[in-house]
């Protein structure tokens, strides 16, 4: 079974802080994604990566950056946290070797509160 681990379940940060959300997967998947989940809006893609050191902007990249130095680890960075970034953040992986129709595998999420 694919295991996607997000390092924190709950985080509380202050406005202006630099925040790191970490995601580690153990299945050697090429593709990794960061989504944020808000009530009534579903999941929106922030950034994704299809290889080490490669990244692509998703639909809502403003205020975020990412880092992928190793295949198994994909970090989401909030350079200067703001209250409108309070949300649930979900990391996901995708195994391209199983074809484009293979599903995403999700971590349990990090609920971030910015005060």
């Amino acid at each position, binding site marked *: 079974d694919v295991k*996607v681990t997000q390092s924190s*379940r709950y985080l509380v940060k202050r406005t202006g802080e630099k925040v790191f959300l970490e995601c580690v997967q153990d299945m050697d998947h090429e*593709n990794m*994604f960061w*989504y944020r989940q808000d009530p*009534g*809006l*579903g*999941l*929106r*893609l922030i950034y*994704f990566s*299809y290889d080490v050191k490669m990244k*692509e902007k*998703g639909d809502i990249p403003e205020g975020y950056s990412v880092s992928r130095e190793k295949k198994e680890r994909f970090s989401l960075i909030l350079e200067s946290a703001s209250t409108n970034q309070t949300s649930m953040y*979900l990391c*996901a992986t*995708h195994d*391209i070797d199983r074809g*484009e*129709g293979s*599903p*995403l595998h*999700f*971590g*349990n*999420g990090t609920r971030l509160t910015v005060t």
Partner: protein
Amino acid sequence: AQSVTQLDSQVPVFEEAPVELRCNYSSSVSVYLFWYVQYPNQGLQLLLKYLSGSTLVKGINGFEAEFNKSQTSFHLRKPSVHISDTAEYFCAVSDLGFKTIFGAGTRLFVKA
């Protein structure tokens, strides 16, 4: 561009009753269709998927969905729900690229 519309934000239903969660999508290309379920305080997990072939797809926990190309719909059904089915359900589409687009979600409440 693709989009996904889940027509109901909340669906209350009594235990052992049937349920249908509705999903419509739009896309200019062929897509793959998915339903994911999210239990409280957990990430999403795959319920079922449609890639090609038979339009009736069976998933885990007794759920099934029917792909209707002419109506661009992919509604999720279960003939008899349990309390444990209380969760949020997401319809999603992806094309030949890497991106998956999600609907806004439907909260299913199963009452005793």
